[in-house]
C-alpha cells in the first residue's frame, strides 16, 4: 500500500476556476483530485410558499458523482445551508431565492470541505454580499494516532476518526464541525489547531486568486 507522498500537515494543491458554468456565479474548487463545482443563482424569484418576508431563502442542492442523491447528500445540503446562511447578509435580499447547486466532479476524500469552499467562492463570484467567508478543511486521525490533513479516500477508509471543520475568516471562530469515529479530547483539539492553520493557507490562496482575476 503506497504511503502518503506529502507531509501530514500539508494540504493538496488547491486549484480554483471561477465562472466554470454560465450562472450568476460559479466556481470549481479542487483539493488535489477532489473537485466540486458550485453554481449560485440569485437573488432570484422565489416560490410563494418558500418566501421569507425579511430575508432571502437559501436553497442548497448537493449532487453526488455516482448514484441518486440519498440521506448523506441531504445532510451535506443541510450543513452547507446552515453554514452559508450565517455568513450571507440575507436581510439585504428579502423575498428572494438564492439557489446553490453543488456537483461533485471528482471524489478523492475531503469532499464536504471542497464543497463548502467552492460555495464560498461561487457566492463571491455571484456578488452576493457576505459578512464573512467560510473556509473548510478536513483531517483524520489514523490507527497509529497520527493526524493527516486533507485526507484521500483510501486514508479515510482506514481512519480511526474523521474531522471536518469550517472556520470564519474574520474571527477564525468555528462555524461548523463534524467529527465521527473514536477519539479523545486531546486529539480533537490538536486537529482543531492544525486545521485552523490550514484554513489560513486556503484563505490566502483564495485571496491570491481573486487578485489575479481582477488585475
Amino acid at each position, binding site marked *: 500500500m*503506497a504511503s502518503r*507522498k506529502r507531509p501530514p500537515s500539508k494540504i493538496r494543491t488547491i486549484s480554483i476556476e471561477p465562472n*466554470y*458554468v*454560465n*450562472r450568476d456565479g460559479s466556481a470549481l474548487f479542487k483539493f488535489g*483530485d477532489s473537485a466540486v*463545482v458550485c*453554481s449560485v*443563482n440569485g437573488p*432570484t*424569484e422565489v*416560490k410563494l410558499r418558500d418566501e421569507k418576508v425579511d430575508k432571502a431563502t437559501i436553497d442548497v*442542492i448537493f*449532487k453526488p*458523482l*455516482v*448514484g*441518486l442523491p440519498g440521506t448523506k447528500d441531504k445532510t451535506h445540503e443541510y450543513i452547507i445551508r446552515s453554514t452559508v446562511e450565517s455568513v450571507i447578509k440575507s436581510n439585504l435580499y428579502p423575498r428572494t431565492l438564492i*439557489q446553490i*447547486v453543488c*456537483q461533485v*466532479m*471528482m471524489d478523492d476524500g475531503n469532499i464536504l470541505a471542497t464543497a463548502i469552499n467552492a460555495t464560498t467562492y461561487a457566492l463571491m463570484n455571484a456578488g452576493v454580499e457576505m459578512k464573512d467567508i467560510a473556509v473548510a478543511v478536513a483531517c483524520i486521525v489514523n490507527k497509529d494516532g497520527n493526524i493527516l490533513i486533507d485526507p484521500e479516500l483510501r486514508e479515510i477508509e482506514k481512519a480511526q476518526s474523521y474531522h471536518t471543520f469550517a472556520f470564519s475568516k474574520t474571527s477564525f471562530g468555528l462555524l461548523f464541525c463534524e467529527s465521527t469515529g473514536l477519539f479523545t479530547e486531546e486529539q480533537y483539539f490538536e486537529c482543531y489547531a492544525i486545521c485552523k492553520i490550514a484554513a489560513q493557507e486556503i484563505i490566502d490562496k483564495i485571496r491570491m486568486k481573486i487578485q489575479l482575476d481582477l488585475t
Partner: protein
Amino acid sequence: MVKELELSTNEKELIISGLKEGIRLDGRGIDDFRSLKITLGPEYGRSEVKLGDTKVLAKVSCEVARPYPDRPNEGMLTLNTELSPMAFAGLEPGRPSEEEVLVSRILEKAIKINRAVDVEGLCIVANELAWSIHVDVHFLDNDGNIIDAACIAAISALSHFRRPDVTVIGEDVTIHPVDQRNPVPLSIHHTPICVTFAFFENGDLWVVDPSLKEEQIRRGDMIIAINNHKEICVLSKAGGLPLEMLTIIQCSKLAASKVDWVREKIQDAIANAAEVEKRKTLREIIIDD
C-alpha cells in the same frame, strides 16, 4: 420559479434572416457542429464533454448484483440523467420535467435498448452474480443540444471504463482488486452517436447542433443516432413541423458524416487518456524506486 426569458421578436427575426443566408449567430455554417472537447479520466469511466458552451459530465461505475430473474444470463445497465438546477434554472428537483423525460428516453433507446454494451458478457455466474453498470450523466451547463452532448459523454465514458477482473473456478468467484490485476474494458458491440437537427419557418431552414437560442425558436426537431456500422439506431421525430422525405434522407446522410467526425474525436480522446495514464504510471514507478 425562474423561467428562461423568451427571445425578443428582434432576436428571432435576426436569427431567421441569418439562416436564410446560411449564417448562424456564432458564425457557423448550418451544417457545422460547435467545437467539441472531450476529456477522459483521471479515473476510468469519467468523461467531461464541452460542446460549445454546453457542458456534460458522465461517470460510469459498477457493482456486483443478482441478475433479474427473467434474464438470468445478463448483467444490468442503468442510465441516470437527472437534470439539475445548475444547468436548468428554475427546475424543481424531484419532479421530472418534460425535457428530462425526453433526454432520458432518447439515451435509453440509443444505448440501452439498442444493446450497445454487451450485457451477456457482464454475467459472472448465471442466476447468481452479474455486473451492474451505472452511468450517471450530469448536466453542468446548457447552451442547447444537451442530448448530443450527453450521448457523446455516455459513449466515451463507457468506452473508457474498466471493470475489475473476475476469475470463476467452479463455485468460487474471485473479484481481483484493481491494484492487483489490471481491470478489463467493457465489451461494446457498437457506438451510437446522436445528431440533432432543428427546423425553422416551414421546413426550408434547418441547422445541425442547435444552440440554446436556436432551440427556443425552432418549430420542429429530429434526432438521428448512427453507429459505427453506419446503421441508424434511433430516428426520433416527435411532433413539430412536418418534413419532406427528401429532407429526412439528406439529414441522415449529413448525420453519418458528422458521426464519423465525432467518433474520431472520441478515439483521439481515448488515445490521449491512455498516453497520460502511461506517463503517470512511469512517473510513479520512477518515484517509488
